[in-house]
């Protein structure tokens, strides 16, 4: 099957190393603040803006941001802000802020530093799931470079001091997106989420805090940041993620054991045909169908195999901020659904889904 001609290369949040495409978009984030200054939420606007300008300069001078881009929230359009959020480069909280808040994004989009979010600085490194040590090493190097420039708010007792007491200590958060159609379709998400929460992990939607769960994808992150060293947090997190991935594989295998394959395959065919032929396509709907397409690839249905098909590059085509940015401005919801449907139809045309050869029993 030929590759669909889609824009290369994929942004870091869409790079998979796992052939089953379960875990992706891994992120390490460090919350840091400047010693002797009020946190952004409490600082007077002038103080916040002045500190923001100073931080913009210091962060921008780091070698990792050579060729990078500075987005000041007050000067960035809502479309661009949505786009940045969808690329997992900024949080919803930063997107909602204005004067004094900004983000530096490295040229390859693996590193970003949010300025005057909830904390003065949020250092973040993105990468494929599984390479936790590499990710942590990159974040640590960034942190070290930053600490030479800025005196951090730090106490020997509580570690790094943050605007929210839930982040004190290491200020360290590690997260990953996991695609779990097996667990969702087998109705096993509720106990899974409960178990994760009991272990003090947060389970959130596709775009992080406050976002909805769509396309059978959830974000898992650690909640405890104090009293444990980063290496220990990573080790436990890695174990939990591996366990979730194992559970998801078993859930998928059970489709075959329970003789439910026909049902799932029926769902998947509907999804493929819908994506390839629909005129209006909402965001939630698109991600739901893409999820089943990914599952089809796992099972090797419809001529999809685990290597090669550029299904990942379909994700940017359905995200509202991405569509609007392509269009050049804000679009009404109806037009957005139309543009989304068109983009997906065009991208899928080479895969020939409308003429799927039905399986013989």
């Amino acid at each position, binding site marked *: 099957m030929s590759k669909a001609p889609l824009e290369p290369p994929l942004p870091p949040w869409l790079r998979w190393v796992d052939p089953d495409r379960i875990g992706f978009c891994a992120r390490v984030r460090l919350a840091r603040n400047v010693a002797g200054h009020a946190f952004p*939420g409490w600082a007077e606007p002038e103080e916040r803006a002045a500190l923001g300008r100073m931080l913009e300069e210091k962060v921008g001078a780091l070698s990792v941001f050579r060729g990078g881009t500075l987005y000041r929230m007050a000067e960035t359009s809502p479309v661009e802000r949505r786009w940045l959020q969808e690329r997992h480069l900024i949080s919803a909280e930063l997107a909602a802020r204005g004067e004094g808040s900004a983000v530096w994004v490295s040229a390859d989009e693996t590193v970003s530093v949010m300025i005057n979010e909830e904390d003065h600085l949020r250092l973040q490194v993105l990468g494929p799931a599984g390479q936790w040590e590499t990710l942590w090493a990159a974040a640590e190097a960034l942190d*070290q470079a930053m600490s030479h420039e800025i005196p951090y708010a730090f106490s020997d007792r*509580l570690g790094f001091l943050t605007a929210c007491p839930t982040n004190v200590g290491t200020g360290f958060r590690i997260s990953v997106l996991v695609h779990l159609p097996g667990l969702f379709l087998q109705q096993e998400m509720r106990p899974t989420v409960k178990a994760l929460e009991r272990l003090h992990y947060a389970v959130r939607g596709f775009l992080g805090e406050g976002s909805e769960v769509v396309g059978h994808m959830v974000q898992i992150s650690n909640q405890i940041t104090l009293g444990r060293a980063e290496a220990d947090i990573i080790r436990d997190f890695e174990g939990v993620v591996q366990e979730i991935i194992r559970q998801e594989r078993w859930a998928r295998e059970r489709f075959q054991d329970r003789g439910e394959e026909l049902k799932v395959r029926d769902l998947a065919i509907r999804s493929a045909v819908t994506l390839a032929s629909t005129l209006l396509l909402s965001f939630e709907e698109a991600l739901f169908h893409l999820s089943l397409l990914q599952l089809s690839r796992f099972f090797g249905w419809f001529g999809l195999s685990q290597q090669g098909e550029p299904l990942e590059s379909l994700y940017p085509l359905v995200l509202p901020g991405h569509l609007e940015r392509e269009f050049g401005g804000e679009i009404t919801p109806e037009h957005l659904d139309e543009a989304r449907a068109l983009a997906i139809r065009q991208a899928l045309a080479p895969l020939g889904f409308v003429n799927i050869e039905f399986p013989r029993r």
Partner: protein
Amino acid sequence: MKECQLCRKHPAAVHWKARVGEKNFAMDLCHACAAQMDTALGDGLRTVAEAILKDLSAEAKSATADSDRKDSQECPACHMRWRDYGQSRRVGCPACYEAFAELFDPFIRAWHKGANRHIVNRRVRAAESAPRSNGEREEALRSRLREAIEAERYEEAARLRDELARLPSSSPLT
């Protein structure tokens, strides 16, 4: 002497009683406040009087003078009050953690699974905490070594022991 429950400035002089709707209320008031409450009731400003009375009775139940003091306690650096934290759930500045240390402690323990101390196990340390005298460094390393051994984190303990050994004029075994 008791102070007036309304203005909290003048001494209470009247034990003021009223019946509003179905309920009886009683307060210790100064003359001026008692007169104001009389007018409020007399003018038919029942809702106002009722609101004040409700406020007071709720306050009397929940908020003792002690928690009042706690609420208005202020961070010397950024002037955030504990009450402000209660509303926003965001800390004012780094110094707040010292100013409200015992108030934050239960929150921090509850969230972080009982932990209330930072564990340093990194190659990078915050710039400001780095420059220390050798004595202080040795002291800190020793206490961390003790903690690590008690918690059976032997890998960390070994690393700390090596770090101690590298300090000038110190023996990790004493």
